[in-house]
């Protein structure tokens, strides 16, 4: 692997005890690639007994070689002198000596104590909760204001985001929806058929898709695809000081970045959910068909079970999930710290918080819908 052809350069050393003290004689090549072996063979006792380092036998010597000699001198308690190095390296040796003498003693920062870390993490948790609530509040106000003055909305950005969030997500939404319909129908058929109630699988699948699984799964897809992307985009902009640049133009990052994304998500979520619901029903219908139930029986069973309220309550959830997932994605982006892993951390946090929020909100919906008798 050596870049220069020919045999690997070697460094030989001898330790001789003379009248003027112990001497380390070097010959060969004192270079970055050879000094490791020498360094390992010189233990502390040998080094502290050294009085001379003799480089007159060296053919070649680089800066790291000289640096290592100076390290040996320092380890010997500065008892040891260097002589016989190639003349052209004299000035470098002097320079290194001078710089090392000037080098300040800097201690590495002490590791943070665990108790402090726990305290900080706890405080951070509450701060984060506040930030989330405040952000969603601001966002809602911002959106309502934008809807009152539609000309203030950045339509080009919003439509572009709608394409990314909605249209581009359609294939995965369709695939997932279909699979969910198929799986749900299959699993439900096993026990239901035992009671001869196989046809009621249509009721079960349609109700759970429209009210629960449709919005939920679509929101999970949104979180994985777009919430993470928002956090990464905005996070990268933050790391690259692009957000500061926006701010110094007096431009409002919320109007510029957040609103187009969140509005796109809020508009697209119900549409995506409808697609997922529909294809899920198709999947279930196919399973039923394969088990000998006719399509018309399936459809009439579905229509008997679900009405507009079921569909609309699901779509309203989808809308709220869209707001939460897109909002938290943007928020995590804005919260990005510094350093190379910051964007990665924000992206992860966007997805995790997004899913937690969806499920928490779903719980609230279950409670409220139940109370309202929906």
């Amino acid at each position: 692997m050596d870049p220069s052809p020919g045999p690997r350069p070697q460094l030989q050393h001898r330790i001789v005890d003379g009248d003027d003290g112990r001497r380390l004689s070097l010959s060969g090549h004192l270079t970055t690639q050879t000094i490791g072996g020498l360094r390992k063979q010189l233990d502390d006792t040998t080094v502290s007994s050294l009085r001379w380092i003799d480089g007159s036998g060296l053919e070649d010597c680089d800066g790291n070689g000289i640096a290592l000699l100076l390290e040996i001198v320092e380890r010997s308690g500065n008892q040891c002198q260097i002589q016989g190095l190639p003349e052209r390296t004299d000035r470098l040796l002097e320079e290194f000596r001078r710089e090392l003498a000037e080098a300040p003693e800097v201690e590495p920062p002490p590791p943070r104590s665990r108790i402090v870390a726990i305290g900080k993490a706890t405080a951070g948790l509450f701060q984060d909760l506040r930030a989330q609530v405040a952000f969603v509040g601001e966002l809602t106000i911002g959106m309502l204001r934008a809807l009152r003055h539609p000309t203030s909305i950045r339509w080009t950005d919003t439509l572009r985001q709608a394409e990314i969030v909605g249209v581009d997500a359609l294939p995965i939404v369709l695939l997932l929806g279909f699979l969910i319909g198929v799986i749900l129908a299959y699993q439900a058929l096993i026990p239901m058929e035992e009671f001869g109630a196989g046809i009621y699988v249509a009721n079960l699948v349609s109700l759970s898709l429209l009210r629960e699984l449709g919005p939920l799964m679509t929101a999970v897809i949104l979180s994985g695809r777009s919430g993470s992307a928002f956090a990464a985009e905005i996070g990268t902009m933050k790391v690259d000081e692009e957000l500061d640049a926006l701010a110094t133009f007096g431009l409002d990052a919320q109007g510029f970045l957040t609103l187009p994304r969140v509005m796109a998500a809020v508009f697209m979520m119900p549409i995506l959910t409808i697609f997922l619901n529909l294809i899920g029903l198709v999947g279930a219908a196919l399973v039923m068909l394969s088990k000998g139930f006719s399509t018309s029986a399936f459809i009439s069973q579905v229509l008997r079970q679900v009405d507009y309220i079921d569909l609309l309550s699901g779509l309203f959830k989808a809308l709220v999930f869209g707001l939460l997932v897109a909002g938290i994605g943007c928020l995590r982006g804005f919260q990005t710290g510094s350093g190379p892993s910051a964007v990665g951390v924000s992206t992860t946090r966007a997805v995790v918080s997004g899913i937690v929020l969806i499920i928490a909100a779903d719980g609230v919906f279950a409670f409220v819908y139940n109370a309202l008798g929906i």
Partner: protein
Amino acid sequence: MTPSNVIEVRDLRVAFGAKVVLKDVSFDVVAGEVLTILGGSGSGKSTLIRHVIGLREPQGGTIRVLGRDITSADPRELAAARRAFGVMYQSGALFGSLSVLENVCLPLRELTDLPESACEWIGRLKLQLVGLGEALHKQPAELSGGMKKRAAIARALALDPQIVFLDEPSAGLDPITASDIDDLILQLVASIGMTVVVVTHELASVFKIADRAVILDGARQGIVATGSPAELRDHSEDPYVRRFFRRESSQ
């Protein structure tokens, strides 16, 4: 190949899609010299360096480094050839998750058999040489632009490479630090025979450290002049070269 040429570039042609950035570029780098690459912003200086260190394949031409044609080298050969290089990227390209000292120690740790304490000793010395002795344990995100540049220089020099490429090392540095870095480069060239290829806009630095300069013109997509800086300044007939020296020296 003349034995004293460490790099030979012949008829290099580089294009990004349909846009030709460099064409018919030929030049040599002689062992132990300091070669500066001059040229306007966007003239292809960084691109040229990226090709010479084998980060990107050219659309035509050959690049021989230490006698090895790196345009046809397989990845292993290329990796071996790169061991002879130290590179300072224009943006610094420090590893953000490592402290400054760890950045400099990384190549020592990974590519030599030096024990940890010796790596650190060398790392500290290199950082002290570029004036960053105080900032050893800082994270790159905590550094100013000029400090990042200096840390990147220290990292490029960590292994005492045979050939060092520096992409605008003095941009963003104060004149005193910039001049210290010039001194360091000269000293390393004189004492350990390092070869240096440096992109810079500081004419003072060019005249101080460079043995030769090549001048790139973005409009003509290539090298328009080669020679010692004084020769180019005093004798070049090329209007671009004349403007380059006159305009920049009148600053």
